[in-house]
């Protein structure tokens, strides 16, 4: 069974305002621009909202969303949980990392509609200023950030990354695929999907090492 669908009334080549501006800029400097038809219909197409239930930080939320809504936008714009950050919006920087069904993912590269019924943990669900998660505490103690924009993603990623090591998930630097253990090299490799433009990497690794030591001790 498929759910009901809408009839598409759009043209073949709709474009956003941003693309109009970009295309204009390209033409102005005389580079070859692919001709793009403008199609106002694409912008005015009525969108049928979708009902999506997300369990975020232990609480159910019933949302009515445009199908295009990413999980990140649902969290930030609809649930006002702005801890998860929009950096690149293309899965390259990791600032949007959240934990879905126990696994870290880029929330910018998935649709909220694909997570109906899923349990999601964001930075707000890991700890509070009064009751910090051990990794949050360690990031403060080790000065694991400068501007802080990547930090929620770094911490969510690190929490799930440590459990991946505990579960024996191998990485590119694991010398033995069958026997995986914590090391600084493992952290560097496994955290490569979280970019820090302030380059606080040594302190991020120190914070993670600290928590890992306490977990296994």
């Amino acid at each position, binding site marked *: *069974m*498929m*759910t009901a*669908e*809408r009839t*598409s009334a*759009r043209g073949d080549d*709709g*474009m*956003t305002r941003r*693309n109009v501006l*970009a*295309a204009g800029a*390209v033409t102005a400097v005389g*580079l*070859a*621009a*692919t001709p*793009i038809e403008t199609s106002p219909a*694409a912008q005015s*197409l009525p*969108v*049928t909202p*979708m009902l999506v239930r997300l369990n975020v930080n232990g609480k159910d939320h019933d949302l009515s969303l445009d*199908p*295009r809504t*990413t999980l990140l936008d649902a969290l930030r714009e609809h649930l006002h949980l702005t801890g998860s950050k929009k950096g690149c*919006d*293309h*899965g390259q920087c*990791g600032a949007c990392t959240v934990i879905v069904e126990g*696994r*870290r*993912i*880029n929330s910018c*590269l*998935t*649709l909220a*509609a*694909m997570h109906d019924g899923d349990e999601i943990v964001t930075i707000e669900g890991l700890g509070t200023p009064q009751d910090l998660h051990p990794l949050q505490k360690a990031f403060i103690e080790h000065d694991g950030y400068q501007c802080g924009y990547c930090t929620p993603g770094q911490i969510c*990623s690190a929490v*799930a*990354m440590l459990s*991946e090591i505990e*579960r*024996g*998930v*191998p*990485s*590119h630097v*694991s010398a033995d*695929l*069958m026997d995986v253990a914590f090391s600084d090299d493992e952290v*560097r*490799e*496994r*955290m*490569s*999907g*979280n970019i820090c433009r302030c380059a606080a990497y040594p302190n991020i690794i120190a914070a993670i090492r600290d928590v890992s030591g306490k977990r296994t001790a």
Partner: protein
Amino acid sequence: MRPFNYQRAADAASAAKAAAQHPGARFIAGGTNLLDLMKLQIETPPLLIDINHLGLDRIEKIDGGGLRIGALVRNTDLAADKRVRRDYPVLARALVSGASGQLRNKATTAGNLLQRTRCAYFYDTRMPCNKRKPGSGCAALGGINRGHAIMGTSDACIATHPSDMAVAMRVLDAVVETVRPDGTTRGIPIADFHLLPGDTPHIETALAPGEMITGVLLPPPIAGRQIYRKVRDRASYAFALVSVAAVVGPDGQRFAFGGLAHKPWRVEAAEKLKGAEAIAASVTLGARTTEHNAFKLRLVRRTLGAVLAEMEA
């Protein structure tokens, strides 16, 4: 993103049927590549068919000793599977050499095979690209093409296929299982799955309209050592300039190469030769290089040399 309809499929055959009935429809599994392309309006599907709940997320033993990998098995889970780590280490190694931890948690086996090229001109909608817009030309041919293909290219396209996983599957002689819109199934040898560009670089695989991947079959494990070696600009989270998937054992040697073509590149005749020099020369016979990517010829020889040295160590 352009507006689209979103449906959840109930089973593989009805998903394939729905896709065939709606030209331009796309299956969505992990979505890590598709949604990226939709945000850039390079992909503008009028319909997304969500196949995440079809139960194709299992890895099962098959008669004769191989494995069937469900289409929706996530890259992390495939690399972490004990049987894969033990019996197909080249595949586990290839998987963990690709993307980031977050992406591997979401990206699926089928989606990895179907991911599109990362050619910068394919991604830049202001530039001509025969793959994105057939007939518009290829900006990569005279552009910055250091990462581009040197084997099996055409005047229409020099893009590479970016998968590491597929290179390991090629050396293992995997078979891609599919279901067609009429409900029939077939197996496509991985060697025939990805297509070289020719005059139609926008047609990238052997899949017919609506045909959906349901899984990948791995033949029984091959005796011997298995290595995946990837050379790239960064130590992590970067696509291959050149990669080598190798199996060397009592039944001979096998090599498949990534970063060279729009498919995993394997020349079986070269596997009868000895030494990196001779094998690399045979593998890259007929190479068409550019000013920027001619270094790949040397890099193939040296990467293969390093793999052979590691095999003997």
